[in-house]
C-alpha cells in the first residue's frame, strides 16, 4: 500500500503545487522521479470509453494435490463486459496470484482496448524483465484484455488477428504416454483413425544423467521404435525429451531415432543454453522443437537467429499471452520455423491459443495434455464452458464463434473447485539421489 500512497502523494504534489504537506519520501538515490501514476488524459481522445473497473484473481484446484491449480483472472469493465484470462504456472500458483495482484495498478482504471500498451507497461515497467512468474501473470491479464476487446468489437480474437487460415479448425495432437503394449498401440491406432487424429506425442519413460549408460539408451530407443511400429507409418509422432537429456545423451539417442521419421524431438536439452541445443541440431536431421519454458519475444530471438530449431512451442500462459505468442510466431515465420504451441494447463489458455494458431501462416499443430479418450477433467471443462473445450473433431479443435475468446464463464461455476494451495511439480532423483530433470 505504501507504493500507492507514494504515487498519490507525488501526483498530488505535482498537480496541487505541493499544497498538501507530506514527508518527502526517503531518497535512496536509486529511484527515478515517479511519473504520473495513471493513464494520461491525452489518451482520452484516441482511446475508447471502456475502463477496467476491477480485477479478480482465482486459484482453482480440480484436486487437492494438483501441481497446477488454474490461475484465472477476470477483468470487469464500466460497460458490463468482462474478460477472462489464464496464467496457470505449474508448481507456482501462489506466486502468480500474488504477481497478478501486484499488477493491479497497471490494469484497474486502464482502457482495455490498449492491450499492447498495457502489455508493454507491465513488462517494461516491472524493471526486472520477464521470467516465468511475471510472464504468467502478464499472460493471464493479456488474454483477458483480448477477451474484452473482442467482445467490445464483436469479433472473435482470431479475426482481430487476421484469421482464420482454415475454417475447419486447428489441427491438434493428444498424448500417448503409457501406451506400451502392442495391443494398446493397435487400439490407439484404430481409435485415432476413427476420430481423424493425425498426430500423437510421447516421451521416453526414464530419467537421464548428463552422460548415460548403454542400457538406458538402448531401452529408450526400443520404446520409441515400438511406438512407431504400433502406430504405423502414417500417423505423426512427436517425442518429448522434456529436457531430461544433456546435449550429449540427446545426440546419441536422436542418432538412433532418425529412421523413425519423427515429427520432432522436443526439448532435447534444458532451455537456458541455446548453443548447447545447437550442438544437437548440427548432428541430427530429425526436426527439433522447444520453447514451452521461454518468455516473450526476447526469449526466442537467439534460437531463431541461430537457426537451432525447426518448431517453436511457446505456452500462451507463460510467454505473455496472445500478444507475445503472436509475435514469436511472426519472428518464426520470417525464419521458416513452424509453430506448435504448448498447452498443458487450463481451458482458457488452451482456447486462447487456438485463436492465435488459426491466424498464423506457419502454424503446424496444437498440443493438449490429454488422451484420445475424454477424461474427468474434460467433463469439468465442459461443465464450466458449456462445450467440450479442447476436444478435437476430425482431428481438429473447432474454432470458437462468439466474440472475444468465445466462451462464457461464471464465478459460480468455479466456486466448486476452491484453491487448495500451491503444490510443487514432481521432484525426481537419480539412483545416487542427485537431482535430475523429469
Amino acid at each position, binding site marked *: 500500500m505504501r507504493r500507492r500512497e507514494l504515487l498519490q502523494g507525488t501526483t498530488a504534489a505535482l498537480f496541487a503545487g505541493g499544497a498538501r504537506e507530506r514527508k518527502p519520501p526517503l531518497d535512496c538515490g536509486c529511484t527515478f522521479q515517479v511519473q504520473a501514476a495513471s493513464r494520461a488524459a491525452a489518451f482520452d481522445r484516441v482511446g475508447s470509453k471502456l475502463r477496467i473497473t476491477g480485477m479478480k484473481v482465482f486459484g482453482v484446484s480440480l484436486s487437492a494435490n494438483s501441481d497446477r491449480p488454474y490461475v484465472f483472472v477476470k477483468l470487469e469493465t464500466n460497460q458490463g463486459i468482462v474478460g477472462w484470462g489464464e496464467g496457470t504456472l505449474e508448481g507456482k500458483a501462489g506466486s502468480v496470484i500474488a504477481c497478478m495482484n501486484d499488477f493491479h495498478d497497471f490494469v484497474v482504471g486502464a482502457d482495455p482496448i490498449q492491450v499492447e500498451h498495457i502489455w508493454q507497461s507491465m513488462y517494461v515497467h516491472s524493471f526486472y524483465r520477464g521470467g516465468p512468474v511475471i510472464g504468467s501473470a502478464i499472460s493471464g491479464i493479456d488474454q483477458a484484455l483480448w477477451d474484452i476487446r473482442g467482445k467490445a468489437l464483436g469479433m472473435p480474437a482470431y479475426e482481430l488477428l487476421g484469421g482464420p487460415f482454415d475454417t475447419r479448425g486447428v489441427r491438434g495432437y493428444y498424448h500417448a504416454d503409457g501406451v506400451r503394449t502392442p495391443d494398446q498401440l493397435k487400439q490407439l491406432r484404430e481409435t485415432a483413425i476413427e476420430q481423424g487424429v493425425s498426430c500423437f506425442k510421447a516421451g521416453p519413460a526414464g530419467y537421464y544423467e*548428463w*552422460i548415460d549408460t548403454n542400457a538406458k539408451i538402448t531401452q529408450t530407443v526400443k520404446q520409441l521404435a515400438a511406438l512407431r511400429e504400433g502406430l504405423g507409418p502414417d500417423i505423426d509422432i512427436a517425442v518429448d525429451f522434456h529436457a531430461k537429456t544433456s546435449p550429449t545423451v540427446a545426440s*546419441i539417442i*536422436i*542418432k538412433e531415432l532418425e529412421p523413425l521419421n519423427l515429427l520432432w524431438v522436443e526439448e532435447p*536439452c534444458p532451455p537456458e*543454453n541455446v548453443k548447447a541445443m545447437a550442438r544437437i541440431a548440427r548432428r541430427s536431421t530429425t526436426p527439433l522443437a522447444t520453447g514451452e519454458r521461454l518468455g516473450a519475444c526476447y526469449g526466442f530471438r537467439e534460437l531463431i537467429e541461430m537457426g537451432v530449431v525447426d518448431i517453436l512451442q511457446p505456452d500462451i500462459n507463460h510467454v505473455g499471452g496472445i500478444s507475445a505468442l503472436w509475435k514469436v510466431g511472426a519472428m518464426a515465420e520470417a525464419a521458416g520455423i513452424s509453430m506448435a504451441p504448448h498447452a498443458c494447463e487450463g481451458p482458457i489458455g488452451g482456447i486462447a491459443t487456438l485463436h492465435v494458431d488459426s491466424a498464423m501462416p506457419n502454424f503446424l499443430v496444437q498440443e493438449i495434455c490429454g488422451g484420445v479418450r475424454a477424461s474427468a477433467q474434460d467433463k469439468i471443462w465442459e461443465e464450466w464452458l458449456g462445450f467440450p473445450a479442447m476436444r478435437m473433431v476430425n482431428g481438429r479443435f473447432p474454432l470458437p464463434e462468439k466474440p472475444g475468446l468465445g466462451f462464457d464463464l461464471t464465478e459460480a461455476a468455479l466456486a466448486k473447485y476452491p484453491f487448495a494451495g500451491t503444490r510443487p511439480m514432481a521432484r525426481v532423483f537419480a539412483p*545416487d*539421489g542427485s537431482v535430475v530433470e523429469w
Partner: protein
Amino acid sequence: MRAIDFRRSRLSAFLAAQANTRAPGSGGLSIADCKAYALREPVSGREYALLKIEATGGIAGWGETRSISADDVARAAAVLRGRQATEFVPLHAELTALPNVQAAANMALLDIVGQAAKAPVYQLLGGPTRHKARAMASLMGPDDAALVAWLKRAQVAGFHAFLVPAVKPAALNSGQAFVNANRKRLEALRAAGGDQSDFVIDCGAALSPGDAASLSDALERMHPLWLDEPCALTSLNAISKVAAERVTPLGFGRSVTHAAVFQDLLREDLIDVFRPDLLRNGITQIKKFAALAEANYVSVAPYHDGGPVGAAAALHLAASLPNFFAQQVPQPVAEEDRRFRADLAGAGLETATDGYFALPTAPGLGLRVNVSMLGKEVA
C-alpha cells in the same frame, strides 16, 4: 507461551549453544607445519605422495600428490605457516609456483577445516548432492583376453563401469585394422560384461585427430560412455574433426590445470565430459571447472590414477557437485597392492557396491591414515 515465542526461544538457545561450541576460529586453525611422505605400491610400483598439514590446535589434514621433493615441502611450509586453514582459496593461488603441492594442500586444508567443523568436506561444500558416487575401475592389460579377465574380477568387486585402453594404431593414421581391433575389443568386453556394463575408451591422447574421428565413427552405435582423451589438446580445429559429425561423447582434461582450456573446449563444442586430474587440481579447483561444465549441461568425471587418499578426496568432491558422473580409481591386479591401499587409508573406501562407492561420513576427508606405513618423511 505462544507457539511462535516458544520456537523463537528454542532457536535463540540453539544459536547461543552453537556460538559457544564454535569450531576453533582464527588461531585454532593456524597452520604450524607441513610434511610429506612418498609411497610406492609393492607390486605395480605405482607411486604417490602424501602431504600432511598440521594446525596449531592439533588437527592434521592429509592430501595426495604424485611426487614431492624436500625442496617443495620446505617452500610450501614457508607459504603455509601462520596462515589459516580456511584460506584454502588464496593459498591455492599463492602455491602456484609449486604445482606438486597445490592440489594436495587444498585437500589437506579442507580436511582440517572439515575436522574442525566436525563435518565431512562435502558438507562444507554445500553437499551432499548425492548419497553414493558411481564407481569406475580403470583396467589395464596387454590384450583383449587379459582385459576381459580383469573386467570379470572388477565386476565381482562391484564395478559396473570401466576405463579400458584403446588398441593403439601401429602408426598414425593407419586406418582400418586399428578401427576393427577397437571394435572387436569393445564387443569382447561387452559380451563378457553383459548389458549392464559400461565402458570408457582411453585413447591416452595418443591418436591423430583422423584416427580419433574414425574410432568415434566406428564405436558411435555401440554407445561407449565416452572416448577418453582421443587426441592431444593441440589444435581445437583438428579436434573438431572428431566432435562435429559423430555423437560419441568425448572426454578431455587429465592434463588441464587452467579453466580457460575447458572454456575453449566448451565454446567450440568439443567436450562432453570434463576429466580434470584430481592430483593436479584438487577439490576446489575442480569444483570451479564443474561450474563451467554445468552451464553447458556437461558432466564431470575426475581423472584419478593415484592412491586412496586422493580417492577419498574425490568422493567428497563427487558429493559436492551437481554434475558429477563417475569417479575412476585404479583397480589393482595384485592382491598385495589392494591390501596396501586398504591398509593405508582404511578398508572399504575404494570398495564398490552395485556400481557405486559409498560416501565417507567422518569429519574432514574422513581418513584414518595408517602412519606406520608412511616410512621416512621427505626431507
